[in-house]
């Protein structure tokens, strides 16, 4: 799956790191947007039932948690992406 950009695509680009590889996002993106426009999932279920890509987009389900270097575990849907952010999918 990939998110499809519908509006605001003229915002300035920024670079961040996703699992050690360079990736690009737009200023003002949520981390969930930034990840899911680059990749098809945000995490593995800890219980071996496959990939997850978030669900509720409103900070309630906690199914989009990722690691940000220097910050710790964050919800990708409520965290803005920042230039140079180093993100690790769980």
């Amino acid at each position, binding site marked *: *799956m990939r998110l499809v950009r*519908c509006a605001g695509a003229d915002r300035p680009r920024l670079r961040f790191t996703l699992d050690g590889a360079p990736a690009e996002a737009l200023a003002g*993106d949520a981390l969930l947007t930034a990840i899911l426009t680059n990749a098809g*999932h945000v995490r593995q*279920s800890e219980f071996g039932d496959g990939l997850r890509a978030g*669900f509720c987009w409103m900070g*309630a389900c*906690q199914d989009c948690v990722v690691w940000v270097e220097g910050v710790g575990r964050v919800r990708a849907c409520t965290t803005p992406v920042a230039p140079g952010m180093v993100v690790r999918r769980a």
Partner: protein
Amino acid sequence: MRVAVVGGGPAGTRAVEVLVRAGYRPLWLEEAAAHGGRIYQRPFAATALGGDRYGPDSAKAAAIHALGDRLRAASDWRAETLVWNLRPGLIDTFRAGRLETEQADRVILCTGAMDRIVPLPGWTLPGVFALGGAQIALKVHGVAIGARVAFIGTGPLLWLVAAQYLAAGISVALVLDTTPFSTKARAAAGLLAAPSTFARGLALLARLRLAGVRVIEGGTPVSIEGTEAVAAVRVRDRAGRELTLACDAVGLGFGLKPESQLADLASVPFRFEPAQRNWVPEHDASGRTPVGGVYVAGDGAGIAGAVAAELAGARAAWAAIEDSGGAVAAEEVARLDRAIARLKRFRCALDRAFPYPAWLAARTPDSTILCRCEAIAAGALRKAAEAGHVAGGADELNRAKAFTRIGMGRCQGRLCGPPAAEILAEALGRSVAEIGRLRSQPPVKPLPILPEAPR
């Protein structure tokens, strides 16, 4: 008197407005970076997305945004502040990496709502999102959840989000409403209590049909197919014919449920609201709960919509003012009461028009994941119910939680709670009201482990 308002959506913003107008300086706590709530949520980059992102509610969104901006200076505004526990007179918060405890004589809880789910085989696949989440993706983040999207569920939001995706140029593979047309038609007379909203709903339906979108009313979702992502949905139409439709994303939602954990922690008793099939914190028409000093307003007190939330927030603020001996604007309060009663009639009709498909939740296949946090399948709950024939078994939802871990994950039962209650009720042959609800626990959302504790 120190009054706290928890939440910056339509209810919280109007509550703060009334308090400020009456000369108070309330503590105003909001988990997000800005006020507006989920319905009028603002993008991270304020000017980036532009356009008519709130659709027909743009004027209301703009009014709430402007009002809240003005109220920030007049209140003790705290953004990015999670309220994770309530104790008598005390509010435990987490803000900027720090735990803090605030004192308040009265607290108005305007904690909003979230999507209510029926789990389907495949609903944890990447590409399946909550219906409200699909809308937030589009209006707040400027992204669609996929290029060809199926919308499955019931409720006015189902049709609204599908139409918004269509307008954004996204291909809509399917709108499947579990509620048959006839059920909605029977509620039509009541829906005329709000004629413009009703007309807007009919226009949405017409627009989707005109655009050639496949619409199934009274259908049954069977499964979401795919291995590492959504590839298709399998559904049955009203006549029972099975269809498989290709798509790369699914918006899934069956109405809303209150985010009422803080009221629970404040010891407010709950009652089962049969029309909405939701548990709601007990309160009177002014938002007073049976617990002195605790008020509830907006969708967190029972689903009533954003317009009603504005009125209820203002009304609860007047109740708090009156209870602390302040002067009340009687005419304004009477006007609010009348408007709230009128909208309640519309909401009752809406509840009848789009019932939660309890039958569908109750027949969740044994192998389908019910608790997505801990990947626990529905069959595990049925097994626990079978064990309930011996003493000490899972005869209500919290005991079932202890046996199965359903509701113990990171979301704390927000998603699995309602369908789990339906499954357990069916398995035990009891009513869902008797099965109960998952009790809330602090912290109401995950907190990082810190070396300090609240005072």
